[in-house]
């Protein structure tokens, strides 16, 4: 029976098509897991099936995933989480007493003493209290109110939630959100999804990716012509650029935000990943309060942190939080409603966050091992940061700014005109063409700079510094050789 014959109803087209779907969703892109990664996964499949290639494995240096690259978890954290998962282990003498104490405290705060119960949408109260204490300690005693802390499913979840609160208006009044170029593409993806206006401000590559207030002002003034700029996002330490902002710079940004009446979003997920001499992490909250009540009572701000990076690298747990400052009480009520829709953040992630902000103390049995592991991870990262900068800068056609912090390098590559033309022919952006070739020839997966944003006519790639040192050396060497080959081929 033909479709047309049934009930005399005409051919039923799909309800959900490219034309009928949410146009904003069509604009969403996320390069970190985009087309090049999909090709990498395909190649991995081919390798498994025995297809011969010039390499035996694909090195996924595209994503900031430390454990994927062999980094070991922190023993203490995993012990406590195991005890929380299966409390019968509390009877097992192989677990240290301090781990058991932490687990018991967490379980007591869970419904039915189980990490399987929902928590409140804002997150388990005693964990938020611990987070507040951590922030106070980190910021030299400046008070933090647990009510201003919202636990989340990774920092990304909180970033999107805050943006949802802030984006409104139509046409020329549509909210504009300032974000650095280059940026972590969650921001551009979220802004596209929300139909917000993205306002790009360029970091200064010639000066170690520093932030200039003049550039902020330029971007803001230009944006005022066509939207209502309300938000300023800053990632510190930076992703993909790795710069660590100076204290003066942070003060200048806060000053700017106050003058221009902007809501500050401070993405600080890499706050423990600081390597370069002379660089130090200064939290936006701390600087804000040290600037005095004229600022600390007025500037509206959200600071984000996560359990995915730093020295723990526990991406798979999806733990994170946002601390909000000077939020209008009615807006806070809306925030509670927003976070309630997804019920609550994953409880294991909340438990993990509790351990990150409340790690073993010097007088506790697990302290020595904890410090050893933490130091080993951070010093290895520092060494790899240094090595990466050093080796890339020996390659003619690659210039690399110091990796002051975070987990990535974002070197600039000079591409021969012939390569740029070839890319155009193939319908590819030049740095995508470059990265695809590297993937096919050497099995190394990077993300093209175009996925993060860059100045017109410049090309980059983002690589993580996460592979184990020996492997990293090999990767750097291979990229060096590839670059010389590529340049030669298209000369």
């Amino acid at each position, binding site marked *: 029976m033909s479709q047309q014959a049934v009930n005399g109803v005409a051919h039923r087209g*799909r*309800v959900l098509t490219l034309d009928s*779907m949410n146009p904003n969703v069509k604009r969403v892109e996320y390069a970190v897991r985009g087309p090049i990664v999909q090709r990498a996964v395909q190649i991995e499949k081919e390798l498994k099936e025995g297809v011969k290639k010039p390499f035996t494995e694909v090195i996924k240096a595209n994503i900031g995933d430390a454990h994927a690259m062999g980094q070991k978890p922190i023993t203490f954290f995993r012990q406590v989480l195991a005890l929380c998962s*299966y409390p019968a282990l509390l009877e097992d003498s192989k677990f240290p007493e301090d781990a058991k104490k932490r687990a018991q405290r967490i379980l007591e705060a869970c419904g*039915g003493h189980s990490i*399987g119960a929902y928590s409140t949408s804002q997150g388990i109260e005693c964990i938020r209290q611990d987070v507040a204490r951590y922030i106070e300690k980190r910021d030299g005693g400046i008070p933090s109110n647990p009510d201003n802390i919202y636990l989340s499913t990774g920092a990304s979840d909180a970033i999107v939630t805050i943006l949802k609160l802030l984006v409104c208006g139509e046409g020329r009044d549509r909210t504009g959100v300032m974000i650095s170029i280059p940026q972590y593409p969650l921001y551009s993806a979220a802004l596209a999804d929300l139909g917000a206006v993205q306002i790009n401000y360029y970091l200064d590559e010639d000066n170690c990716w520093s932030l200039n207030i003049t550039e902020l002002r330029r971007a803001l003034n230009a944006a005022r012509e066509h939207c209502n700029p309300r938000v300023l996002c800053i990632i510190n330490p930076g992703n993909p650029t790795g710069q660590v902002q100076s204290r003066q710079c942070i003060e200048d940004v806060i000053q700017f935000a106050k003058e221009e009446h902007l809501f500050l979003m401070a993405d600080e997920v890499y706050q423990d990943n600081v390597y370069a001499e002379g660089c130090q992490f200064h939290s936006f909250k701390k600087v804000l309060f040290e600037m005095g009540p004229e600022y600390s009572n007025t500037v509206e701000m959200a600071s984000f942190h996560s359990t995915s990076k730093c020295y723990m690298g526990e991406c798979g747990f999806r733990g994170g939080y946002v601390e909000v400052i000077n939020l209008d009480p009615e807006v806070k009520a809306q925030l509670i409603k927003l976070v309630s829709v997804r019920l609550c*953040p994953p409880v*294991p992630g909340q438990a993990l966050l509790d351990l990150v902000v409340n790690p073993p103390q010097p007088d506790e049995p697990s302290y020595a091992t904890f410090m050893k592991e933490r130091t080993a991870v951070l010093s290895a990262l520092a060494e790899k940061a240094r090595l990466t900068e050093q080796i890339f800068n020996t390659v003619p056609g690659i210039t690399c700014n110091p990796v002051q912090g975070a987990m990535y390098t974002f070197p600039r590559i000079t591409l021969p005109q012939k390569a740029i033309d070839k890319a155009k022919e193939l319908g590819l952006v030049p740095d995508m063409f470059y990265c695809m070739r590297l993937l096919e020839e050497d099995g190394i997966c990077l993300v093209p700079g175009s996925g993060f944003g860059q100045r017109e006519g410049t090309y980059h790639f983002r690589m993580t510094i996460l592979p184990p040192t020996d492997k990293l050396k090999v990767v750097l060497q291979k990229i060096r050789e590839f670059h010389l080959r590529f340049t030669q081929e298209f000369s």
Partner: protein
Amino acid sequence: MWNMKQLEYGALARRANQIKDELRQGVRRPYKEVIDVFQGDLHRAGMKPLTFVRQILAACVYPPLINSNNLPLDVRQRAQEELGRCVGGSVGSYSAVAGIPEIVHSISEFIKRRDGGIPSHPENIYISPGSQWSISNILNVLVNREASPRTGVLIPVPCHHKTVLSITQLGAVTVPYYLSEEQGWALQVEELQRALESAKGVCNPVALYVINPGNPAGYVQSQKSVQEVIRFAWEKRLFLLADELYQDCVYGENCEFVSYKRTLSEMGPPFSGTVELASFHSVSKGFLGECGLRAGYVELVNLDPAVMKHIHTLFSKDSCAPVLGQIALDLMTDPPKPGDPSYPLYKQEIEHIRAVLVHNVKRVHEVINSLPGFSCPPIEGGLFVFPRLNLTPKAIQKAKELGLQPDTFYCTRLLEEGGVFTGPGWEYGQKEGTYHIRFCIAAPQDVMEELLRCLSSFHMTFMKDFS
């Protein structure tokens, strides 16, 4: 309907937490603890997690346990297997966007087994942090915020609150269709038709959201009913959103869960190849009750491949679902089998949970219907009861004076005086002039008996006070 009482929303929960704190601090109240049956949260109510699940999660989190003789052999082997699927052998690494591929495959096999062999394609399945997350994502793709008239989504009344919030926050409009309380909360196609008519000139309905088994109303759709809904969706060009979280919770005699996917497929052309369907499931309910792990999945059927690409990108910016939750999903869809060392205990625990639920729904039905001014149909499935309150004009008047919805007033008093935390019917939607409460029936038997005792005692007093 739902925007009205924004101030009340959450107030009851806050008060419940306050009372819990007071009791912890030793403040005297007519009861020793609050019986919290507000949410569908098995563990909070006192039900135990499955041993098998928790042993494996612990071993995955702390791999030295894999060498421990204290854990059964199959647990250790399974944990090793799960870790082998994680990138870098750690539950701390990100997974692929749609989930760990072997687990996604496992889910597709589960669906195929459940649906009598009808194939399920792994590339149509996405794991997310809880089902609401993927419901939101799919709604996001469906809802065109700039469209005029606005996008509409048909929703049942009563309906649990979260999906309604998702819909309204995306700027879409809910188009309510009333389940028939007199017919045990049955879904009637004529009512779907009426609802659709009511949307003319108001919004552009693009989707039909169904919950089967129901929440809060405990109905289980017959296969005929599912077929009727599919036919309706086909005729009226609606995208079907099937919330099937409670598929393991079926108690009614002659009741059986039949999935929308299976029914759609068995209906054959033209339906089977054209009706667009998103089916949702999760680890939060059923026997696992692992709400806190946050893992669910959506299976998408008959979607436009070009749209699927965008759906993939949308999920990709969320990174991935928590890995422990994904592993729990795997254990749910591929549990111990006869012959496995863990099977006897697993079977015992499942059967115990099932027995408790079957017992509870009987008792609750019995007790509620024995009380004056309180009634409910038999609970066929799901984890809640949604009994009807016949409040006297005096009670309704008192509620008005206090600025509360009448059923909120009842629930507030029940919390304060009886120590039982339940949800007021208005939060889920109900016919004008009717009042209900909702509470979860998944609690250990002794807790349920205590709950029913407190509820009965409170109810009699309340009805007397306002007679």
